[in-house]
């Protein structure tokens, strides 16, 4: 038996980490047919998937994000993992917010690999120390810190001008402005009132403020180049998901010593997450089904979760994994996740399609990007946001 896996982890550590899974499966007598399609954060892979499904030849397992999983389940294209899930007790160890995506109609359909959280700030400790800045804990401190950096001639906020990066910042900003309730009301429930509220205007005002701390040459810059600015000390902060940690580690930096990781000030306690999952497509033969559920089980196994997430910078998708192998930031992430899960402050990322469907997500992108690039002022942006979300629903 073999599994065909469609994914976009084509380079660096994550691909190597996936190789661990591959070898594990091979050890269990299951072949791995690799089907990598990179590009656009999985967009190209999703296009390929559509072609494959239409042709009646879907892969066994597909790396997927958020609502895509639900959409495919709604199309009836996915298989059923209930057997292995109940056998291994996934319901108990996987945070409910993740289950929201991994289960459809009460059935397990996908195996989550990791949990990324997006409301992180990465800071160059040397720069902060030099300028006498302490780790900011409130929004105002954060702004003040950036003012200081700006005066020193360095770039306060490293940022790459791509829609998803701006939306990533949005995650943290929304949480810092209105907390989890507002976040949910506006971006999960898509309540027009919340979307058009003054709070929303404040969100955009804060975004505008941040824009003021970004250098002029930001447009189209890849996120890892922005990270490099922090690493080099050209810039002080970057708001980015925890995958940025890999860049720091790769550059030989040590968490806590060379760089700091902390939640977007004002959003403490809340975690906006996104989770890579492997959605399992409907296969017919029993043999294939077995292979599929073996794979799902392997993904969920603590060893793999650890092996993978230590490399990827994210945290395991189950809460019962030992923290020992993780570095400081990783451990903090795990703690935050567990806490947020407990307190109900674990929210799906807006920017990474865990708050709403693709159409809505992209509608939000359009507005945020237009605003960030100076096309709208905050008031217009709020209006446009309401319209855009409405027409995308």
């Amino acid at each position, binding site marked *: 038996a073999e599994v065909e896996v469609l994914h976009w982890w084509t380079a660096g550590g994550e691909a190597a980490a996936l190789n661990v899974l591959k070898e594990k499966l091979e050890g269990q007598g299951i072949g791995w047919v690799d089907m990598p399609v990179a590009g656009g954060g999985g967009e190209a892979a*999703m296009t390929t998937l559509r072609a494959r*499904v239409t042709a009646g030849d879907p892969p066994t397992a597909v790396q997927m994000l958020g609502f895509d999983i639900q*959409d495919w389940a709604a*199309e009836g294209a996915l298989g059923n993992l209930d057997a292995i899930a109940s056998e291994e007790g996934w319901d108990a160890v996987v945070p409910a917010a993740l289950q929201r995506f991994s289960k459809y109609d009460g059935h397990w359909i996908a195996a989550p690999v990791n949990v990324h959280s997006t409301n992180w700030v990465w800071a160059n400790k040397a720069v902060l120390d030099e300028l006498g800045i302490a780790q900011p804990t409130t929004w105002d401190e954060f702004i003040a810190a950036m003012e200081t950096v700006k005066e020193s001639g360095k770039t306060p906020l490293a940022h790459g001008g791509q829609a998803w990066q701006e939306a990533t910042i949005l995650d943290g900003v929304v949480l810092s402005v209105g907390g989890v309730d507002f976040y949910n009301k506006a971006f999960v429930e898509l309540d027009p009132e919340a979307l058009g509220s003054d709070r929303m205007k404040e969100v955009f005002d804060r975004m505008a403020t941040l824009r003021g701390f970004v250098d002029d*040459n930001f447009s*189209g810059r890849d996120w890892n180049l922005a990270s490099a600015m922090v690493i080099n000390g050209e810039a002080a902060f970057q708001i980015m998901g925890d995958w940025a940690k890999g860049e720091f580690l790769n550059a030989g930096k040590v968490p806590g010593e060379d760089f700091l990781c902390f939640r977007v000030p004002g959003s403490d306690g809340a975690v906006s997450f996104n989770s890579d999952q492997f959605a399992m497509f409907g296969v017919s033969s029993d043999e294939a089904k077995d292979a599929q559920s073996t794979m799902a089980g392997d993904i969920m196994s603590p060893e793999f979760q650890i092996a993978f997430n230590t490399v990827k910078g994210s945290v395991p998708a189950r809460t019962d994994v030992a923290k020992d192998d993780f570095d400081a930031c990783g451990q903090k992430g795990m703690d935050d996740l567990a806490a947020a899960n407990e307190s109900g402050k674990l929210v799906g990322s807006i920017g990474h399609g865990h708050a709403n469907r693709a159409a809505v997500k*992209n509608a939000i992108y359009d507005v945020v990007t*237009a605003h960030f*690039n100076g096309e709208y002022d905050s008031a217009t942006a709020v209006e446009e946001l309401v319209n855009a979300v409405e*027409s995308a629903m």
Partner: protein
Amino acid sequence: MAHLAKADFRTRLQEWLPKLVLSPSIAAMLVFVYGFILYTLYLSFTDSRMLPSYDWVGVENYVKLWGLRAWWTAVINLGIFAGLYITICTAIGLTLAILLDQKIRGEGTLRPIYLYPMALSFIVTGTAWKWIMDPGIGIEHTMHLWGWESFQFNWIKDREMAIYTVVIAAVWQTSGFVMSMFLAGLRGIDNEILKAAQIDGASNWSLYRRIVIPLLRPAFLSAFVILAHLAVKSYDLIIALTGGGPGRATELPATFMYSYTFTRNSMGIGAASAVIMLMTIAAIMTPYLYAELKEKK
């Protein structure tokens, strides 16, 4: 023909063979081109999202489409892009062809240099152009390093100017090809006509303006078809170079259509935009085809 009945079998086979040979192409074309166009047309009237669905919603998608700012941007961008791209490519292609036709030493070396960009895909060169035009690391940076501090070239970061960087890269890719077409056209002009014009007292300038360029009409037409088709289909270029940004300032209908169909799961709107695109192409192509086919009469 009155006496066809008397024709023997092999003769009749000979008469049918041409059509028989053509028929697979016609069939393929009917299915894979026109069938799919009809299918797209149909989808544009449905509420298809992630996968095709068959629920009829009338012209709703079209209404939505024309209500989208991004679509307007895309259409206006296509106007700017196609207009500039076709004009500049033609101008450069023609100029280079004329210059290259002056018995240039080293023509054999220059021609492949002008032509090779056509061989590369934009996945390949988009990155290079992105670099070159990036103010932080590209030309601007280099000029600064070389001591020209005031030099500024940051179009790719500028919402107003970014579309022109797309034009630059696109022109870079195809103008050499257009040059070849014109060169071929120039080489095809009867030398005697040029001689006659010189005897008639024409200077080089009037020779080109009055005789040569009018005679290149067929080359202009071919170039136009190829350039127009490339302009309309431009997708890779945008993705590799600007990703549609800054913001969505360099969105073109092709990228728009792709993103609505595949990344935004709004296949109905994507299909509607495709239909509009195809209709535009048809509106531009039909007169050309008509002229082309009529001439042969």
